[in-house]
Each structure stands twice: as structure tokens, then as C-alpha cells.
């Protein structure tokens, strides 16, 4: 099927179903088709899209005066379709898409908590982000809510949250978190179990809700890029890249080629660093200390190169609107390439050692199995999806610069267990190393930053990039005076967290930590 064909087919089918689609013109080089439909068609649209095999990718709302605009982003074969509808501020109601797309469930609950938009027919009536920090009738993302919020001293514990119960003799609950024993982010996991066997797992996230969406309002582009870099600390490059991409679209600004290449280098370096850390952490969770120490060591070396070349170990604030902050000199380019050769050699040694160690294999093979159909149903992205046969990568399928200039292979596995999430990370490291080398070779002298142009009021942008965890979608809209009016970053974790509940089933309790680590969702990126 021709790439553009499916949107046409879909449109025809929608018209047959009596849904009027208002195709709108996009602002500068937006990577998606934009449709507007009426609120009553919101649910039928999802039905037809599901039949067409579209993946639900993101959903958010914004307030424009007396109206709410609700957005949903779909994807198929690398083509994105952005659908929006408008509803009134008085008694805002919308048919739910979560009864069709499982992935939309938490997102709609989030929107419901933040805007007070009621989703009719949503299978889950419980709050998601709200906890007890603000009461039921307060909606922080409405424009009448003050940006500084109304912080109380202590948020009371949400003891009455109706977790799913297991019935039958001998079942019990394990509450884990939000405070974990290790130094990780907060999140609550509620297990229903019989002895060691996990019957069900339910996640309760939202403990790191920082109000990112609210505090973004009224920021300048530079400040927003900084904020975006802090949506999830380990994905700082990709989030700020996605935000900058969206802002540049809104401002109809293009960036210099050298800047794009450097952004690519930064993003790949981030990917390598995180994957190295993750592989080490997986080893740590099965008490395989030798490998953990080795991976920590090579990651540390990698981060030190980051610090010496880009001025920040974790590459924060390197991507700024219009380009990048720091350039790479020729000698630094050579240093990076030498580094890569060194890393490759060490990795090969370590991986051979791992390969020979059956005690590690024993833990990761067949454990934490995520079947392909569940991965498809939840629209799982990134290495989690690719380990379960989801062959999608924004870098390849959308080919935004600089990835349009290089050829590379996206690793896909179908085994779906921890081992395949382990090995896919390793393959992605190897691919990323190759990409960095190619980008450095492609670097040609030139500018790294274009001057910022103030966008017109109401202009919007949609940035989609492949972060190290997977596809990142960032939507933003400008107000007058170069100020942000709405910023919504969708971290890949939002799509990946729900499948953790599925992949731990039939595993035993002590295998949960390594299952969780193999998925490694971001709490901060999810809670916003």
C-alpha cells in the first residue's frame, strides 16, 4: 500500500460511516496529517482506525478560551495522523477512545484529572494523576488555575484507592513503593499474589507529578527547551530536541545541517549511555556483579567524554531552539571516534564473557515474556516494542534530519523476553556507535545556530523524535509575545508502562525487579 494511501482509504471509510472530516493545512513541515472532526464522531473514528490497524500514539487537550481542543495522534507505517475536536467549556464531555484503544486509557484519565473533561464510556473511573494533592473539582491545567498552584503541606496517602482485588483463599497483596529501597524514582506497585506466583500487578504512578505542563505556560522558547530537558533526566537530549523541533516548526525556522548532525550525535550518545547503564542494571538485579561493574565502568568513561566534549556529563541543555549550544572541533571528533573504537573492543570482551555465563542466561531467558499481540494492542514503542516484534523506529520511518542522510539497520526481535530486551539494547548500542561515526564523517563546516524568529500567536508545532526509550511526541502552541501557551511532551514510557502489568504475569515475585528493569520506564516522564 502506498504510504499516503491509507489516510485516503481511512477518510473514505469515515465518510461512509457518516463522519465528516475537515482536513486542515499544516503549518511549516509538520510531520503529520491534521484532521478535525466533531465531538460526537470521536468514538466512531477510533473504531474505524482500529479496524484499519492504526496505532494510538498520544492524546492531550488544551484550552483555547472557552473551548477545549482534544487531540489524538495515530500512526501507521510511519505516517502520523493528528485528529482534533472541539468541545465547550461548560460540561465538557467526550466519548472515550479508551474503550477501543487500551493505550488511551491512562492518557484520558490524565486529561480528565487535569482538565475535568469527562470521557463517556471509559472503562476505568478512577483518577490517575490526581491522587489527593488537589480535590476532585479543581483542574490544574485550566487557564483559571494559578501556575504556582496551591501547595498543601502534605498530601495525605491515598489509602482508599480501589485497587483491583483478588478473591479466593490465600491470595494476598504486596504493596511496593512509592519509596523503594534503591535510589530510583517513586511509584507504587500493587501485586495480587499467591505465594511467589503473581496473579496480577497494578501500577499506581503519579508520585513525581511536577506540573511540567502547567509551569511551561508563559515560558520563552529558551526556557522551554530547558524545561523539556528536565521532563525525564535520562532523556534530556531527545526531549529538548522534540521540544525544539516543535518550536522551530511553529516559528517556521530551519536549523543548520551541522546543528542537525550534532543533535544526532548527542541523541545517539545519550542512547548509548543509557543502554549501557540499563544492561548493567539488569545484571545487577540478578546479582551478577561482575557485569554490572564493567558496564558501569564503560558508561562512566563514555560520560566523561561527554563532559569533556559537550561540557555536561548527561548532555543537558545542549540542544537549544534554532540549533545546538556547543560545536565539535576536529580533534574532538577524532577523540569521539577513538573512544568508540575502544568501547567496541571492551564491549565485545564483556559480552563474550556474558555469553558464556549460563547463570545470567538462566535468569533472563523466557522470563518477563511480552507476547506480540499485547505489544501491538498497547502500541508499545522503543526497545520494548522492538523486542516483541514491533518494527517501528521514528528515525528510519520518519527520517527527520540528520537521519535522512544515513543508512542504518533497526534491530527487531520476536522473542519478547528479558533476554531479547537485553540483546536489543546491545544491538542498538552497536548501531548507535556506527551512526555517530557516520555523523562525524558527514560534519562539514558551518553554523550551529540560527537566529530565533518570534512565531505568530496561536501557531503550533508537533515534534516527533526517537528518544532512547522510543518515540517521543511533543506538542506545543505559542501565545502572543513568544510565550508558550500549551506544552505536552509524551514520553515513550507512557505507552510502555502498561505492558509491565502484562509481562510480569506468570512470573514469580522475585523476578519482578529484573522484569521492571528490562522495561525501565521513566516515572518522571510519565507523571509530568
Amino acid at each position, binding site marked *: 500500500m502506498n504510504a499516503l494511501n491509507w489516510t485516503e482509504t481511512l477518510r473514505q471509510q469515515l465518510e461512509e460511516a457518516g463522519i465528516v472530516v475537515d482536513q486542515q493545512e499544516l503549518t511549516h513541515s509538520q510531520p503529520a496529517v491534521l484532521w478535525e472532526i466533531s465531538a460526537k464522531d470521536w468514538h466512531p473514528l477510533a473504531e474505524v482506525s482500529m479496524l484499519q490497524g492504526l496505532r494510538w500514539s498520544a492524546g492531550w487537550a488544551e484550552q483555547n478560551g472557552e473551548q477545549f481542543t482534544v487531540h489524538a495522534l495515530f500512526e501507521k507505517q510511519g505516517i502520523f495522523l493528528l485528529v482534533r475536536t472541539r468541545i465547550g467549556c461548560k460540561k465538557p464531555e467526550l466519548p472515550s477512545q479508551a474503550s477501543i484503544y487500551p493505550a488511551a486509557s491512562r492518557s484520558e484519565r490524565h486529561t480528565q484529572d487535569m482538565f475535568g473533561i469527562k470521557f463517556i464510556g471509559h472503562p476505568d473511573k478512577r483518577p490517575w494523576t490526581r491522587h489527593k494533592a488537589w480535590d476532585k473539582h479543581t483542574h490544574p491545567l485550566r487557564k483559571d488555575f494559578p501556575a504556582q498552584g496551591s501547595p498543601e503541606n502534605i498530601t495525605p496517602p491515598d489509602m482508599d484507592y480501589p485497587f483491583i482485588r483478588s478473591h479466593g483463599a490465600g491470595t494476598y497483596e504486596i504493596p511496593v513503593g512509592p519509596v523503594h529501597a534503591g535510589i530510583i524514582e517513586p511509584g507504587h506497585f500493587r501485586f495480587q499474589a499467591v505465594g511467589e506466583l503473581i496473579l496480577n500487578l497494578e501500577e499506581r504512578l503519579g508520585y513525581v507529578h511536577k506540573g511540567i505542563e502547567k509551569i511551561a505556560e508563559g515560558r520563552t522558547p529558551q526556557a522551554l527547551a530547558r524545561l523539556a530537558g528536565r521532563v525525564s533526566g535520562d532523556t534530556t537530549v531527545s526531549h529538548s530536541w522534540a521540544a525544539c523541533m516543535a518550536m522551530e516548526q511553529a516559528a517556521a525556522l530551519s536549523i543548520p545541517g551541522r546543528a542537525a548532525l550534532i543533535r544526532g550525535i548527542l541523541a545517539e550518545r545519550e542512547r548509548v549511555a543509557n543502554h549501557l547503564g540499563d544492561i548493567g542494571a539488569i545484571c545487577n538485579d540478578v546479582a551478577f556483579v561482575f557485569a554490572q561493574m564493567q558496564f558501569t565502568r564503560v558508561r562512566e568513561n563514555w560520560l566523561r567524554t561527554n563532559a569533556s566534549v559537550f561540557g555536561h556529563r548527561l548532555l543537558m541543555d545542549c540542544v537549544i531552539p534554532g540549533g545546538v549550544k556547543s560545536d565539535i572541533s576536529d580533534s574532538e571528533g577524532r577523540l569521539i571516534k577513538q573512544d568508540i573504537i575502544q568501547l567496541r573492543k571492551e564491549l565485545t570482551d564483556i559480552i563474550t564473557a556474558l*555469553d*558464556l555465563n*549460563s547463570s545470567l*542466561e538462566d535468569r533472563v*531467558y*523466557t522470563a518477563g515474556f511480552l507476547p506480540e499481540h499485547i505489544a501491538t494492542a498497547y502500541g508499545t514503542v522503543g526497545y520494548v516494542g522492538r523486542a516483541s516484534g514491533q518494527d517501528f523506529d521514528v528515525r528510519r520511518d520518519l527520517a527527520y534530519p540528520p537521519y535522512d542522510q544515513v543508512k542504518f539497520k533497526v534491530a527487531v526481535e520476536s522473542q519478547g523476553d528479558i*533476554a531479547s530486551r537485553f540483546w536489543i539494547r546491545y544491538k542498538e548500542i552497536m548501531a548507535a556507535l556506527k551512526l555517530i561515526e557516520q555523523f562525524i564523517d558527514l560534519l562539514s563546516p558551518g553554523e550551529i545556530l540560527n537566529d530565533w524568529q518570534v512565531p505568530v500567536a496561536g501557531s503550533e508545532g508537533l515534534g516527533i523524535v526517537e528518544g532512547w526509550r522510543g518515540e517521543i511526541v511533543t506538542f506545543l502552541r505559542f501565545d502572543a509575545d513568544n510565550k508558550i501557551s500549551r506544552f505536552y511532551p509524551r514520553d515513550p514510557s507512557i505507552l510502555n508502562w502498561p505492558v509491565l502489568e502484562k509481562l510480569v504475569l506468570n512470573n514469580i515475585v522475585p523476578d519482578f525487579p529484573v522484569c521492571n528493569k528490562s522495561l525501565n520506564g521513566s516515572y518522571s516522564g510519565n507523571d509530568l
Partner: protein
Amino acid sequence: MNIEQQDFYTQAILSMAALIGLASFLMLGQGRLLRLIFVFALQGLLLTLTAALSAYSLDNHHLYISAGLTLVLKVMFIPWMLRRQVLAMHMNRDVEALENKTLVMLGGASLMVFSYYVLHPIVQSSSTIMVNALAVSLSVVLLGMLLMISHRQAVAHVVGFMSIENGLFFAAIVATNGMPMVVELGIAFDVLVAAVLFGIFFFHIRTSIDSLDVDRLNRLNEIDQ
């Protein structure tokens, strides 16, 4: 006839026998091919030591040669070749799911007991060391067969086959103070040829049915067609 009364050579040989039996058990319990091959090499090393010890104690020089042959062949060449093939065919990460490892192991233990009882009558007519060596080598042979029965991978079958040969070799060293040189050379040559032939076979099986799982060979059965 208690062990305290035996000379050091006998004790050492008996301990070697125990270790060689243990190595067979370890092989039986291994699901991973690379580990299996490693333990196989270990068993070869134990055999080498036994042969060298025997040669030294009995002043039997041609046993040095068979020790050397064992070292080269069973500790180095065959494991190296098998390992290379496993890596080349990406079988190192295959999970060999044994039906019930514990049961197989307990079956192995009872085989060992069985071989002792089979050979027990000889105890009256022969020395302890002879009986024990024979008993251990018989159980190594039986365990090798059990290994072939319980594992699905063709490589494991080869290792099982080789360990059967190890058992026989051990009996030969200890019970008869080494076979005539010619016989030994012949056997060594046979093993070598067998190993190479297996290697070639692997590639053929692999290319024709895309797996080395011998259960998949069932598909070649005509009745199934």
C-alpha cells in the same frame, strides 16, 4: 580392604575415578551447550591426569603418549571445534529445556549404583582398584547414554558419545595399565574422524532442516508425510 590400607597411587586413582564420575554428572545436568563442552574438556583433563599418573606410578612410558594424545584431542581440539561450531551456528543461547532435571539426575545416581552392583561380584576375584575403575567407567558410559537420551541438541549427543569413549578409555588405563599403543592410536584416530564427521553432519542437518534439535529429525519420518 579399607581405603586407608591402599597405597597412594590407588587412592589417587580412586579419587580421579570419583571426579570423572562427577564430571559425567555435571554434564548430565547441563542445559547450556558451551558449559557442556567445558565440562567435557574438564573430564578430558582428568583423564589426562589419570593417564599421566598411571604412567608415572607404573613406569609405563607409552601411557605418557596416550596422556598427551588425550590432552591434545579431548581437552583442546574437540572442545575447541565444538565450541566454534556452536558459536558459528548461534546455538549458544538456545535454552535446552530438560523435562525434569532432578529426575534425570536421580536416574543417573541410580545408574551409578546399578553399575556398582553389576560389578560387585568381581570384587572377590580382583583388586579394589580394578572393580572401582570398572564400575566408574561403566557408569560413565551409562551416564553418557543417558545424556544422549535426555538432551535434544545434536551437539549434546556428540558430547555424550565422546564421554562414553572417555569411560572406556579410563577403564583401559586403569584396569589393563594401558592398551597396546596401536590400539590406542587407532581409537584416537577414530575419535578424531568421528568428531570431524559430526562437524560436517551438523552443517548438513542445519542447512536442511534449519535446526540442530534432533526431535526435529522426526519430521523426516516418511509416515508423517
